[in-house]
């Protein structure tokens, strides 16, 4: 397992939204998914995950529903809303521009 990186707040929001594009997921699943996809580079601090989820729900970008988990337990599933999808697009393009700009600075300076 390589060295993990702590996430900035805004970045966590972006990752959560992105994770939910395909299907609704519960909190633990989201944390797991981010970790897996980033090949364990991005460690979601589980403690900061839930406040972020609640915040996103309040913004209306994600919505929550109680449902049954894989082994049939009650779990709260989050899904992306229409405005969440747009937010994701905005944030993604912001991020792309930002990271491209930073990469550019790092390369040339």
């Amino acid at each position, binding site marked *: 397992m390589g060295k993990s990186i702590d996430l900035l707040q805004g970045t966590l929001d972006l990752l959560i939204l992105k994770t939910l594009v395909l299907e609704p997921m*519960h*909190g*633990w*699943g989201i944390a*797991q998914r981010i970790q897996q996809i980033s090949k364990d580079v991005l460690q979601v*601090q*589980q*403690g*900061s995950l*839930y*406040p972020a989820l*609640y*915040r996103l*729900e*309040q913004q*209306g970008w994600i919505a929550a529903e*109680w449902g049954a*988990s894989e082994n049939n*337990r*009650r*779990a*709260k599933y989050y899904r992306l*809303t*229409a*405005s969440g999808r*747009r937010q994701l697009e905005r944030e993604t393009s912001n991020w792309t521009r930002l990271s491209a700009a930073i990469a550019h600075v790092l390369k040339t300076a």
Partner: protein
Amino acid sequence: MMLNLRALFHKSRAEQEMDDELRFHLEKQAEHNIARGMSAEEARYAALRKFGNMGQVKEECRDTWGMRFISELAQDIRFGLRQLRRNAGFTAVAIGTLALGIGANAAIFSVLYRNLIHPLPYPHAERLVMFGVVVPALDSRPFIFGFTYLGLRHEQTPFESMASWMPGVQGCDIAAPEAQRMDCAQVESTFLPTFGIRPAFGRNFTFQEDLPGAPPVCLISYGMWRSRFGSNPAALGQLLSIDGNPTRVVGILPGDFEWPTLARVDIVLPEKLPPSARGENPGVALRAYARLKPGVSIAQAGAQLQPFLQQFIQSAPPMFRKEIRLGIVPVREDQVGPVRQALWVLFGATLALLLLATANVANLLLARAEVRQRELAVRSALGAGRRRLAQLRLIESTLLGLGGGIAGLGLGFLLLRVSVALAPAGIPRIEQAHLGLPGVLFITGMSLFSGVLCGMGASLAIPPAQLLLGSRTTGSLRRRLRSALVAAQVAVSVVLLAGAGLLLRTLRNIENIPLGMDTSHVVTAEVALGRQAFLRPGEAAGFFDRLETRLSALPGVTGVALSDSLPPAGAEHSMPFFVLHPEGHPPFEKGTGGMVAWRAVTPGYFRMLDIPIIEGRSFASSDRSSQGNVIVLSKSLADRLFPAEDPVGRRVQFTSPPGPWYDVVGIAGNVKNAGIIQESDPEYYLVRKDAPDLGLHGFPDLQRHAFFLVRSPLAASGVASMVRGAISSLDSTLPAKISTLDARVGQLRTRPRFNAVLTGLFAMLGLLLAGIGLFGLVSYSVAQRTNEIGIRMALGAQKGEILRMVLGQGLKLVLAGVAIGIAGALALTRFLSSLLYGVKPTDPLTFIVVSLILAAVALLACYIPARRAARVDPMVALRYE
């Protein structure tokens, strides 16, 4: 929004869900750890470690709950305000409409509150009662004779404390430095303690000072202390000449002291009930107040007082016994009983008006919702949920409601002033009614209520997002809602109009009641001689004679007469019917026979008031000095005493106590004498005799008090000042109350007029609102159907058909509303019955007229847009969309 409300108000539920979610997370993580080879316990700890500070996380999660609600609310309020500002015209109309409803409510509520809810200004006032016996023939309010009262005072009773009062407030004169007529009351020394009141300064008079022969003392009102003594504390201990009797001021009543009957009282004197009240003679009639012992109900008190009732009944003349019952009445009931109903009716009318206003604004909002479809669609597309949109609507309408409340506050204030001007004697305490804290709270409640109510329709009618995204929705729910609202408005208007109509007919009936006399152009002057003046035999009568002569000599005066009381305000004196014994008939033995009013008048009295002498003659001047006794009977009394006989020339005797015979010299027409709407009593007249023996039925005070009636075609104000001048030229220290007979009669009509004018006003406003609502709905529907109408016309429909179609659509609603309204009015107007006179609560004429008025207004409201529809140019209409 519902979720957040839950979070705010039912935190436990949201908290529970959060706990569930976090527990699920930890279990999931533990399973994951076990799968990676940890023991169960290790796995659990590892999961907790990985999660971090649980308490802090929860706290952060909780923070988001309230914040969102508040930030969204602030955002929506800002948006709502912006919307309202942008549509200033709409906002003004809506706020104005609501202000009308709220203002009317506020005004009536504050009067209602002051009278029916506001605590009486006595500690534990709920335990204060007026008690005694009720003998309907004598008095509708409880009274008690001195001997019964004194007996009770020494016994075990349900009362903690009791106090008696010589009923009524008498005029009394104070001299030096300036003569003034004041209002004096005589009460027992326990009066103030019973009411739980202490003088603001000084002291109450003592039990010793309340005994006959004690040195005279008095308490004065706060108002008198201020006006007469300039609030100088030195007033205490001063001697005040009351009716020529030097009386020491021992105390000053508190500024907020309210007499239990709401009468005005300037000076309170000891009652000095003579101990001789006990004995054979029942003694004077008193009003008695008492404070119930804590925990004793009125029913229990009544049971405890039964022995006294029985004792009283035994001592009463047999003919009275059957009618006697016990009366224990809460002080508030005694004060406001007669107007309670009127207040509730007026309050009901204003609530109806507010409903109408709310329905109207709801309709406006619904109409606007239609216009704002596109905006809604955009917002919906942007992700605003149905709930959020509904919330927005409600916030907007609540803002309107609050705006209406603020404007209504001002309007209510004005309306209250108008009511005060309308009803100087119509409603008790109306001058004291003001929009205090309860009024403001009430207005706030009403504003929020009406605001939410009128936004409800618009919120309910927000279609699901999918529908909004379509280019055009039918909005049939909205249309149905709007139609229902208009029908409801019409229905409420019918109820309001029917109520107002019935009260107006009552007023008209009351105005048209024949009084049996001509009250116009008569100035009245009430003159009472001080108790210490004109005491030598004949002096008082001599003074009145001189005054009469002087008044008769005034320029323009065509007649002067004296009487001891004036119709129709109620006779000062009355006699049970059984006491009158007509010559040649057996004595009356069927109970009391009710009361007979009587007055002692001068010979000019009948001519003065234009009361016809049907048979025989009026009094002659010679009757005043003659030794014999003459009597004039009213027609109704003559018919009862001498049925089917000619009474003139017959004789009547008063049997209790047995007196001389009176010769019947004439029969006078019936005159209203017990109030305008009350059944009048039969009546007889005696002549005011010359000094020294006035022969006035043993009422020695009669010769010291009189109403002068002065008829003159000149303007009343001029005559009044001449009369005042004449009185003061004879005795400059003698105060007199000068008025006109018409004013006295008018005062009796004040309350019905107040009821009728206010409900009439509310009904007119209601009718206007319903008309506007209908007009709006039909206009809107015409505008919406322009296209359709155009097609119809292009296909050959005639103008008349279009007109009929549009009119028919509106009138269908009106008819439905009228039908519902009439049913509602029939159910509700029976609550009016005690306020009505000469008209039944289901009076068909009123209902027909009301329906016709509504139909006419509705027709007009529909006709204008219908005509516009019929003028539609098919070509323009087809190009319209």
